[in-house]
């Protein structure tokens, strides 16, 4: 990675870190933690059984963190990869510097991904701890592979979403609207349509990476058939890499 890319990434990260957007996203990212705390309270009050911890974590991950928090974080940062500077009126300063445009955009994307990871992962791991910790340290250890699979699904999903929304950010004037439609309109509709349409969503591949035991009963019915783990990994990597690359190409040729 060139020093200019890391310089841009670091600058973007530092500018975003204390921004009002990050405050809002931090609140969103901690929502699952609040739900996990409520779950802990129900266990303490003996409303829920202690042994239901792993299932509670899976439901929290499959119903809140992965389909809602992860795409929202990716959307609110990645869609601004170009429009933030265009709206702030700072794009001209950067585009007349002796830095390749691809490096500028790579740096911005890297800064965005870093902040999304910082916002998503700690609360997610905390949820795992809160839901399973009551069963003892041994339980935490034995369910660790489950956590890893959930983190893998989330990380690859965020990568894919970020690429998609970065591309929208370089092409569209209102990328946020596109993103909201994609997440809550298209993906929601595709998941209930029978046939191959679900392969055109990111959620399908994210769900495919989650442990099988995460989906039981109603949840399993909503998710539908799954792709194999290697296919899901490859699909998410391909979506992320392809959309990021196209976004860079568009930006490199963009007239301002």
């Amino acid at each position, binding site marked *: 990675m060139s020093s*200019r890319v890391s*310089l*841009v990434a670091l*600058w973007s990260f530092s*500018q975003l870190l*204390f*921004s009002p957007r990050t405050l809002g996203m931090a609140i969103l990212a901690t929502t699952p933690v609040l739900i996990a705390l409520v779950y802990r309270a129900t266990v303490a009050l003996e409303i829920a059984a202690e042994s239901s911890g792993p299932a509670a974590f899976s439901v929290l991950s499959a119903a809140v963190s992965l389909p809602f928090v992860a795409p929202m974080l990716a959307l609110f940062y990645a869609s601004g990869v170009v429009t933030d500077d265009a709206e*702030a*009126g*700072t794009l*001209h*300063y*950067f*585009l*007349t*510097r*002796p*830095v*390749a*445009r691809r490096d500028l955009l790579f740096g911005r994307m890297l800064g965005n991904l870093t902040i999304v990871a910082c916002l998503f992962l700690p609360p997610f791991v905390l949820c795992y701890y809160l839901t399973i910790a009551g069963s003892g340290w041994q339980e935490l250890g034995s369910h660790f592979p489950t956590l890893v699979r959930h983190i893998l699904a989330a990380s690859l999903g965020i990568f894919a979403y970020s690429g998609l929304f970065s591309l929208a950010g370089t092409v569209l004037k209102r990328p946020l609207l596109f993103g909201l439609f994609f997440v809550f309109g298209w993906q929601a509709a595709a998941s209930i349509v029978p046939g191959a349409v679900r392969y055109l969503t990111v959620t399908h591949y994210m769900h495919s990476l989650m442990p099988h035991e995460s989906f039981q009963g109603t949840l399993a019915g909503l998710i539908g058939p799954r792709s194999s783990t290697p296919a899901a990994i490859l699909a998410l990597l391909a979506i992320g890499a392809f959309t990021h690359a196209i976004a860079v190409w568009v930006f*490199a*040729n963009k*007239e*301002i």
Partner: protein
Amino acid sequence: MSAVIELSGVSRWYGSVVGLSRVDLTFARGVTALLGPNGAGKSTLLKLVTGLLRPSSGKVSVLGASPFANPDVHRKLGLVPEEEEFQARVNALDWVEYLLRLHGFDEPAARERAHKAIHDVGLESVSRRRVMTFSRGMKQRLRIAQAMAHDPEILVLDEPLTGLDPVGRRDVIEWIRDWGARGKSVLVSSHILHEVELMTREVVLMTAGKVMASGNIHEIRRLIDAHPHHILISTPEPRRLAAHLLEQDGLHSISFSEALAQVKLETREPDRFYELLANYVLHLDGIIHEVSSPDDNLEAVFRYLVETR
């Protein structure tokens, strides 16, 4: 002197709107001003030169290369954009330093240059303040600081005097002249003729995406002065003033309106009449309230030029 910037048959369209039409221009070292009313194509030309736009047809060459997304050209270029903003939470020093780091300067060198640039534009006392708290004039000084900090060979300034107070205007005009005198190429756009006259003698007059005239400002002045110049005088005694003025030679036409309390005249010797009116102010007490010229705006100047072509 060899051309630093060259435009050959350059046109640029925005859909069906013509931004620039078949422009052939060369810019050498020194200060050149692009003069024209709003919508003349000045900003489009500057965007083409700085590589933010590509020409729809023709060729733009800066230091022998195409400037579009070209880091080699941008290394030698400084841009003061018009009305561009800054990132909200950044302070002036960090902003200039970051842009210098993007130029490839290491941290100590970038910091040193940023300090110097901030000092040179008179923002030293507010260098740690967030830019969002700056006045319009201070922001304009910061735009100039970031453009000059890396000592570019070519400086491009889009309406650099916008938002500046008289002291700021004087300073910026002085800096521009100084840059030109140091053998740098300075391309500056403006729509105010008298400001441009203080910066340079070399001008390019543009309107509706076309170059109307280019060369020495005095030649263009002469061209303009060959046409009757309008002077509008507000007066409580239009009949009396008109009678005084009618006695003068060089008057092309005169009219007055009691209702509007004004006298309107046309002359080919505007300087002599302005002097005369100044004398009237001194000797005919209270007869003149205000003197203005509709010709002071560039649109009128360009109307003259269009009519003569």
